[in-house]
């Protein structure tokens, strides 16, 4: 209520500066017929994209190439959202790189993995599109954008190595190539412009947006109102809400500010909520993914995920209270994170130097040792002592783990033992502590296979598309590693093409 009041005052103040006629006020009251009469548009484009991550940029490129004029707005002072800080793992099935390395895969197998991890809550039609078009999306990133992918990696929950990692092990490889491509096409990301609300006409079609120009993140009073007309459509690609404590605790009350997040600070949910205000439907909002591989000993995403996720299947994860394993290390993120939270204290992931040298990128290891989140010990006794692990049960558990590695099968938790894993025993031993961080929002707006946002009557809201993390349904309960990139780029491209194909209303 208070929030609304303030918005309204801001808006009135905005009228003074932007020189708007008073008739616009009806639209802003948030009820009654929306009218555009009197709105003075400051700028226009056929397609207006909100957000500059994978999804928004993919949409912008496709819309532009389909002949539309395009604007991309971004509230932060730098472009790229979570996409520019991401780990660069792109899941795609049946690719050339997989064939080269003798990995047999298919969109059907990828779909089965997604559904299994997603607890069969996935919107299958959309998940299938992601799988079927994943290879094409990756090839587009390589051939059209010029992004470089260097290696095939493995993430828990996939039945085969399927994630193609960028050369720099960062999503920025793709985002920066997208930004360069857009520049070539004459489109610049307009930074520090925060989307505030949709403008609809009498029929409820989205015909534009209000933004705050010159916005400084965190200062809700900053910036001045600007109205941008979208002659064809708006594509909402504003990402997830992992950093929005108020919103995430509504959907999952466990996720208080006690939990850190791996996301960029601007990963908040106001744009998604604006879509809900104009009648959009949402789904799976309480399926918020925690990264089970995160460390309490470093901030943000850090280096530990790049360590832990590489040595699963090579070294066990131990409950320090008992000295015993408690979860399938190669299980999906939800199983692992829930199990750790249940234990209530950070758990220990240990690997020996054989596994670490084989699996972990040297610069990651070096950086993690330097910041202190990865530790090195010469004996298992030393490890037990440092982390207060009861020694005998711990040693017994390591022996038991080693017997599973030797026969290539884990009788206790069915961990997928690494292909060339060896029993743990070559010192030094590397240890990280794990405590989950809020990582990804599976839930979001309901869209159809054309990326149109559906309303509460299951009808598309005319003029509104959504793609990327702000959209829900594809992942169901659990997103598998690497599938966000596929999802964002596949549906970002679809949204861009479809939006450019709309009949202009003006």
């Amino acid at each position, binding site marked *: 209520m208070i*929030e609304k009041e*303030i918005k309204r005052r801001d808006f009135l103040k905005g009228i003074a*500066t932007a020189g708007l006629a008073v008739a616009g006020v009806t639209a802003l009251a948030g009820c009654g017929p929306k009218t555009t009469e009197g709105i003075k548009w400051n700028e226009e484009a056929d397609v207006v994209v909100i957000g500059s991550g994978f999804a928004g940029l993919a949409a912008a490129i496709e819309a532009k190439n389909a002949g539309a004029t395009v604007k991309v707005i971004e509230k932060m002072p730098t472009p*790229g959202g979570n996409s520019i800080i991401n780990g660069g793992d792109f899941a795609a099935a049946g690719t050339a790189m997989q064939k080269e390395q003798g990995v047999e895969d298919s969109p059907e197998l990828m779909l089965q993995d997604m559904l299994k991890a997603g607890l069969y809550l996935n919107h299958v039609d959309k998940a299938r599109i992601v799988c079927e078009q994943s290879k094409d999306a990756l090839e587009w990133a390589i051939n059209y954008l010029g992004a470089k992918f260097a290696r095939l990696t493995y993430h828990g929950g996939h039945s085969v190595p399927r994630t193609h990692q960028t050369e720099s092990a960062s999503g*920025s490889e793709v*985002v920066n190539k997208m930004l360069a491509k857009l520049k070539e096409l004459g489109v610049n990301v307009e930074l520090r412009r925060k989307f505030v609300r949709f403008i609809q006409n009498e029929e409820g079609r989205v015909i534009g947006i209000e933004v705050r120009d010159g916005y400084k993140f965190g200062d809700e009073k900053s910036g001045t109102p600007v109205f941008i007309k979208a002659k064809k459509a708006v594509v909402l690609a504003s990402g997830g809400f992992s950093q929005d404590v108020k919103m995430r605790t509504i959907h999952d009350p466990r996720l208080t500010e006690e939990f850190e997040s791996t996301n960029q600070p601007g990963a908040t949910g106001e744009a998604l909520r604006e879509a809900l205000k104009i009648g959009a439907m949402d789904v799976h909002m309480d399926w918020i993914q925690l990264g089970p591989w995160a460390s309490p000993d470093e*901030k943000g995403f850090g280096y530990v995920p790049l360590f832990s996720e590489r040595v699963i299947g090579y070294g066990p994860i131990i409950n320090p209270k008992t000295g015993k394993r408690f979860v399938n290390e190669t299980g999906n993120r939800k199983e692992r994170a829930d199990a750790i939270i249940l234990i209530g204290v950070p758990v220990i992931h240990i690997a020996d130097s054989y596994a670490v040298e084989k699996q972990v990128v040297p610069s990651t290891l070096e*950086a993690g040792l330097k910041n202190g989140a990865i530790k090195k010990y010469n004996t298992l006794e030393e490890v037990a002592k440092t982390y207060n692990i009861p020694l005998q049960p711990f040693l017994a558990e390591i022996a038991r783990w080693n017997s599973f590695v030797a026969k290539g099968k884990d009788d206790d938790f069915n961990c997928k033992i690494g292909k060339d894993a060896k029993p743990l025993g070559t010192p030094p031993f590397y240890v990280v502590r794990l405590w989950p961080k809020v990582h990804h929002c599976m839930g979001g707006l309901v869209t159809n296979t054309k990326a149109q946002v559906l309303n509460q009557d299951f009808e598309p809201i005319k003029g509104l598309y959504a793609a990327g993390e702000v959209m829900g349904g594809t992942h169901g309960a659990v997103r598998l590693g690497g599938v966000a990139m596929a999802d964002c780029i596949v549906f970002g491209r679809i949204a861009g093409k479809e939006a450019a194909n709309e009949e202009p209303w003006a």
Partner: protein
Amino acid sequence: MEAHNGQTNEVRKKAFFRPKVLLGVLAALVVVAAVAGGVLFQASKKPSFCATCHIIEPYYNSWKGGDLLAAKHAEAGVDCLDCHHKSTVAKIGEGINYLTGNYENPLKERDFSMEECLSCHKDDFAEAVAATDFGESNPHDSHLGEIECHLCHKMHRQSEVYCAQCHDFSWYKDLDKSWKTELAGS
């Protein structure tokens, strides 16, 4: 929480509406006039300007001496007008902003564009990139790509490393006093 803060601001703003606007307009006009006329130095010393002295003074002081980047420019013979010259028109525009909305904080931090910095640093920027290759990472060459200089470098206030919101790089502690280093790691 946000909304609540917003409300108290609103109340406070109303109470101070008149004096603050006045001050803001005055300050804006003085900045415009002074910068345009090149009399900033004298102006800031004259008692008749004392309503605005305390506003301009810190800028002058940060240039005249001390640890901030403005002072380093002063040492190299760069003065107020070398940086603020072509902005007269822009300043007038800002004056209007003060009138209509930004009266709360008359001298709001202004964002210098990358082009403005590069108008002098185009030729030595490649050197700067090389000078800041700290091995672990390089603030001028990262996954964030080309970002605005002012996200890190500030002239009249302490600079801050933008990367610090996500990374604890060990080179922060070696930066000089023009940088906010105590924040790193928090």
